[in-house]
């Protein structure tokens, strides 16, 4: 592999890594508030992409498609919490996780009915003319994906670290009962976490659709890779999710170069298995400091 090829694979890895990172953040946001693994996360990404396609067909400008799709999936995700998660609060986390698996099938089937089976695309946000870096090329959409991902991650960090409600959400993740004793509404935190998770996932879906197309069935694989990335980074740790997403994206891209494109999807699962065997808490697994 020449250096230029290497660079090319890295660019491609960063693009898909951004999407995995955002999907992983989606998992993390819900997991840290509720300990639920939302198996319909990938379908939220898919619906973000297809939702934007639908709005674009309706003649809306791209930025409006982006915002509209994000808003719609945010609403859908809060609806999922209300309809499928909250009623199962007393049944325990396992029942809630199974409900998300059910939701994944429902959403996928609904998407197939609404959009059909073929893969759909969106125009790139700002043209298709590739930029040349050395002998490698980079399409402008990659920069959009990377830039928007950075913006989302920074905004989330500021929100969770600096705002009182963000701090309250982190407190809920540590100790829900103690959080309630401070007057924090746990239900509100859970609902908000689903909303935010839906928004982030949908944004990932809209951004990637111009590059890699989107069909009703794309969600499952995106969800599994986002889950692998989240596990790699240590579930519950948003910065870990970002790191996990980029590591996965880049390793996968280099794997295509070194091994074969046929093994692309297998790489994510090999990584997932290795993490689970060797370091179940993930690379940046949430370390809880507590002295008794």
């Amino acid at each position, binding site marked *: 592999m020449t250096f230029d090829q290497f660079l090319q694979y890295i660019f491609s890895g960063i693009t898909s890594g951004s999407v995995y990172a955002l999907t992983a953040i989606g998992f993390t946001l819900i997991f840290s508030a509720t300990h639920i693994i939302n198996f319909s996360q990938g379908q939220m990404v898919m619906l973000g992409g297809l939702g934007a396609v639908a709005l674009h067909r309706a003649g809306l400008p791209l930025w409006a498609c982006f915002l509209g799709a994000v808003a719609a999936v945010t609403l859908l995700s809060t609806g999922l919490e209300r309809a499928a998660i909250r009623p199962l609060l007393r049944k325990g986390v396992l029942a809630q996780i199974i409900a998300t698996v059910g939701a994944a099938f429902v959403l996928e089937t609904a998407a197939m009915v609404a959009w059909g089976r073929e893969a759909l695309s969106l125009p790139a946000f700002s043209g298709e003319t590739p930029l040349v870096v050395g002998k490698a090329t980079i399409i402008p959409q990659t920069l959009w994906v990377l830039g928007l991902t950075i913006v989302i991650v920074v905004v989330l960090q500021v929100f969770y670290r600096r705002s*009182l409600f963000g*701090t*309250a959400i*982190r*407190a809920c993740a*540590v*100790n829900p*009962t*103690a*959080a*309630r*004793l*401070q*007057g*924090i*509404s746990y239900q509100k935190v859970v609902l908000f976490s689903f909303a935010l998770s839906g928004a982030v996932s949908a944004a990932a879906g809209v951004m990637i659709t111009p590059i890699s197309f989107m069909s009703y069935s794309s969600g499952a694989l995106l969800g599994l890779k986002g889950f692998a990335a989240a596990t790699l980074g240590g579930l519950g740790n948003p910065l870990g999710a970002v790191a996990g997403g980029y590591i996965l994206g880049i390793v996968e891209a280099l794997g295509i170069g070194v091994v074969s494109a046929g093994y692309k999807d297998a790489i994510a699962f090999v990584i997932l298995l290795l993490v689970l065997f060797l370091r179940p808490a993930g690379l940046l697994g*949430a370390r*809880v*400091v*507590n*002295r*008794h």
Partner: protein
Amino acid sequence: MLELAGIRAGYGRIEVLHGLDLAVREGEIITIIGANGAGKSTLLKALSGVVKLSAGSVTFRDERIDKFSVEQIVQRRLVQIPEGRQLFGPLTVRENLALGAYSRRRGAVPVAQRLRRIFALFPRLEERLDQQAGTLSGGEQQMLAIARALMAEPLLLLLDEPSMGLAPLVVRDIFAALRALNQEGLTMILVEQDARIALSLAHRGVVMERGRFVLEDSARALLENPEVQAIYFGQRESNLARREAKPGYGELSPGRREADRGHQEVSHGLSLETTWADDQGEGA
């Protein structure tokens, strides 16, 4: 200020509180003493809404609160410091305090001023503002737990075992702070396994056995009550002394065996004598 009438509560089908009546007056400290498993913590959880009542009523400042959610009860300024402190360990001291004020972001006193009052009471917290709460010493954690509750501007403070796992000197500091807060007018319900130190702080005491109140009197009278001394002041002897067979062990209340086990778990043992002696020295 607070009235309990015939409250019953428990977990699932197991009833733990079998009909409790109690009236708490404004400005007083009332302590509930009893063995491990007597239902003391469950009672506080029921008052805070964490455990729902199956019968009876709780009236706080002329308002029925027993159907309220945990959050609504905190907003009424009935604030609990739960057993084991339950701080947000990975969060900083500053963040823990900020969350304490969550239910009263716009209270009678601005948040910044509340913080200043707390630092006057616990200067060590100010030094540790940006440290993770989980890395504080046990005593500092208890101070932070109290401080966090004070941020909610409580009218009635529920304390569940504030002395748990702390060194005697630290317990003395904590109880001195509680006394100072009470002198400023804060009403408290104090649940303690360490009956002696609890009664030395409180105005009134209630003895709880197996989910029922069996005795209610002034703290002074309970301190001098031979039966209470015999059953609940077991920790005055060292663990070693208690391990030796004592005649008449089984003649006392059935609660005693549990009481002793509880004290061993807390394992204050011999050292508590110092605390008590010191407290008496202060004229407590």
